[in-house]
């Protein structure tokens, strides 16, 4: 087991970093889209009732099928991988952004508005802080699932830890299977922990509990 790492550590580190890269970019792009989209949809129920089912449908497409569908459109490699992962991420992210903003006590918004805060002041000083814990919660769940699904992206030459795992499966190479699994799981556990700490801090902040 240790021998495998000793012999292949350069490859493993490269693939590990690649996995982080795929996750990071997919998540980043998804957040940039989901934040404004979620805010918009939280204020417009009609638009939400159209967009959310679409995101739900995308979410239910099996990942292998999704990757296969994207190959004719954007080819092989990193691009389709990130595209697919962004598409998967949107449902949970947007849903949590919406939930975050809708969970704000209406009395707080009324008081803020009634005191003369502008829409932007209300948004950045009040609403965002209140919605943040739920939003981070969404990012956390999404990050974990992106780390998982990104493993499959190695099928379309996107690299990442899936390369080790599937190589191991193909060649019945137990150390590769174990290391691939351990590294993916370890990454997911670490990211989950890190974000849950952020989430707890945001929650304490939004409730006015000094930490």
């Amino acid at each position, binding site marked *: 087991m240790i021998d495998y790492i000793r012999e292949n550590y350069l490859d493993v580190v490269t693939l590990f970093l690649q996995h982080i890269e795929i996750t990071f970019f997919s998540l980043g792009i998804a957040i940039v889209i989901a934040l404004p989209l979620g805010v918009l949809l939280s204020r417009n129920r009609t638009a939400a009732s159209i967009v959310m089912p679409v995101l739900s449908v995308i979410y239910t497409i099996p990942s292998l099928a999704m990757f296969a569908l994207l190959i004719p459109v954007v080819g092989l490699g990193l691009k389709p991988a990130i595209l697919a992962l962004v598409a998967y991420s949107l449902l949970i992210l947007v849903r949590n952004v919406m939930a975050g903003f809708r969970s704000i*006590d209406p*009395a*707080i*918004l*009324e*008081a*803020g*508005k*009634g*005191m*003369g*805060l*502008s829409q932007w*002041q209300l948004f950045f*000083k*009040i609403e965002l*802080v*209140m919605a943040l814990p739920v939003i981070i919660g969404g990012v956390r769940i999404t990050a974990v699932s992106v780390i998982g699904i990104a493993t499959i992206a190695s099928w379309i030459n996107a690299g990442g830890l899936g390369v080790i795992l599937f190589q191991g499966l193909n060649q019945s190479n137990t150390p590769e299977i174990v290391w691939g699994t351990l590294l993916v799981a370890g990454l997911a556990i670490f990211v989950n922990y890190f974000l849950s700490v952020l989430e707890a801090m945001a929650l304490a*902040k*939004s*409730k*006015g*509990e*000094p930490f």
Partner: protein
Amino acid sequence: MSGKYAIVLEGISKTFERAEKPSVYKTDLKIEEGNFVTILGASGCGKTTLLKMVNRLYEPSSGKVFINGEDVSRISPTALRRRIGYVIQQTGLFQHMTVEQNVATVPEILGWGKEKINRRIDELLQLVGLPPAEYRKRYPRQLSGGQQQRVGLARALAADPSIMLMDEPFGAIDAINRSILQDEILRIQKQLNKTILFVTHDITEALKLGDKVIIMNEGKVQQYDTPLHILRHPANDFVKSLVHSDDLFQRMAFVKAGDVMNEDIDSQKLSEEAPESQEQTSLRDILLLLISSPFHYVKIKNERNEMVGTVTINEIRQA
């Protein structure tokens, strides 16, 4: 527009989208500067709607609102609201901000200097009975309901608005604390000479606090007058049954000693031992004093502790 009216409503009405009938029918009202005016009425009669048209949280379907002679539709809603204090029942305190940050909200938006804001926070917390040293750094969740409402009041007063709108501010507070807060808002209003428009559905509160009371029912103003006038001359059956003006005991609870006392007195002739009371004391309490003392009158003193009148059973009869 005459300058001595703080708030003028001219033919104001409000019909919400898709509503069958107006929430507030055409209404004309003039509220004098420095007056404490309460709006009294049952749930859903349009009190909040009326109030929110003053600071443009709702836009009226017809009519105009003037504050201090200025047409509010010509002032941007945010600028207007920064000039009007606003307090609601649920306090709406910003949970993630400390007491001082909450109070500083509007002064900060208005760009006041740090020093000035700091002094203002201390002054206001002092005013609402929360010692600054103890309360400045607390978060809303570390305060009782009554204390939170005090912070809400301080926050609304922060930029020293001449007009305050209050929507059932004490509605969620227990009877004992409500009574204390009522006394304090009266004291603060006298001290700062604010014009206050105060919504309540508690008759006692409306009559106790209001220099004048607006009685509403089903979107229409039924009567706008002083508490004493409303009790003595209810405008219609609705008002009559609302304030139980047929019930002498009920009426005595609302009429204040200062309203009916005999001011034609000779202090020399009044006994040292005769019972004394305040102008704001209800006739019911005065009657209790009368019954439990050998004297046939109660001496009434004003805020400066000067003798201003007496009440005998005759004055009570006339109430």
